[in-house]
């Protein structure tokens, strides 16, 4: 297996959706190709860092305000719909 082929399979490998034969070929490649090992390891860390990053959390006060606005508009729409029925 060449490095380019390894890269093509990287996402399937990290997501664990790969057949046993391809998996063992990939792991054989990883055992001797340091660059691909580093790319694989740091790609995995990239995903984990973003997954755990808590970027763009919704603050509680804004959350309450948005939900209250949504509910008010839903009730108005419901009233309008029942008025038209």
């Amino acid at each position: 297996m060449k490095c380019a082929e390894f890269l093509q399979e990287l996402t399937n490998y990290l997501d664990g959706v790969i057949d046993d034969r391809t998996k063992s070929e990939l792991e054989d490649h990883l055992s001797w190709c340091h660059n691909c090992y580093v790319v694989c390891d740091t790609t995995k860390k990239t995903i984990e860092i973003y997954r755990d990053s808590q970027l763009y959390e919704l603050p509680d006060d804004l959350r309450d305000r948005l939900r209250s606005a949504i509910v008010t508009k839903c009730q108005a729409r419901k009233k309008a719909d029942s008025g038209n029925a």
Partner: protein
Amino acid sequence: MSTIQPKVDEPVSDELTLVQAAKNGDVGSFEELVRRYDRNVFRIAQHITQNREDAEDVVQDAFLKAYSNLKQFQGQSKFYTWLVRIAVNEALMKLRRRRPERTVSLDEEVKTEEDSVPREVADWSPNPEQQYNQAELREILTKTIQGLPQTFRTVFVLRDVEGLSTEETAEALDLSIPAVKSRLLRARLQLRERLSRFFQRREPGAEKLEIENADDVPTNESGDGDQ
């Protein structure tokens, strides 16, 4: 090397009951659905629009649109996947209004062959995120993901941040599964490449890389580098 462990989904056993009650006019049941997913919708909207006010609008517009069209939801997919699809479309409409000079869509062609080949292969520190304080790390991660083309960013956020499956991501974005996989691979590799500038193993005493340098990373994209 082990695989990525997906986020565990919260139980949704009562979800169809809530949806059904909301369809029958129970706003309280719909409010419970809002409580469940408002944080996710806000994150997705802010990642796509990169603007806080737009993201707030998207949260309201997406939930209202969902409420108005609940009867269209037949339960073939999860309610959340259906909601994400609505939210992504609302967010893209915001982008179009804000940047009418640019085409904004999820299925445009993107030229990316060259940037899928890793150039930076230096190993990272064992705990790279601990090299920076929380505010610095947040800034590095935000600027780095904002530099991704919107089409890649959206796939990465749904799949790797929000934990949708490949199939759910394809459904929410109206893309084929191979298209999702291809964009996800490129998004992951590009983010990895850019983060390597900050996280690679350094000799003792070496200075930390300045965060501002994130702006200098070329995107290698034609027409869609919307940072």
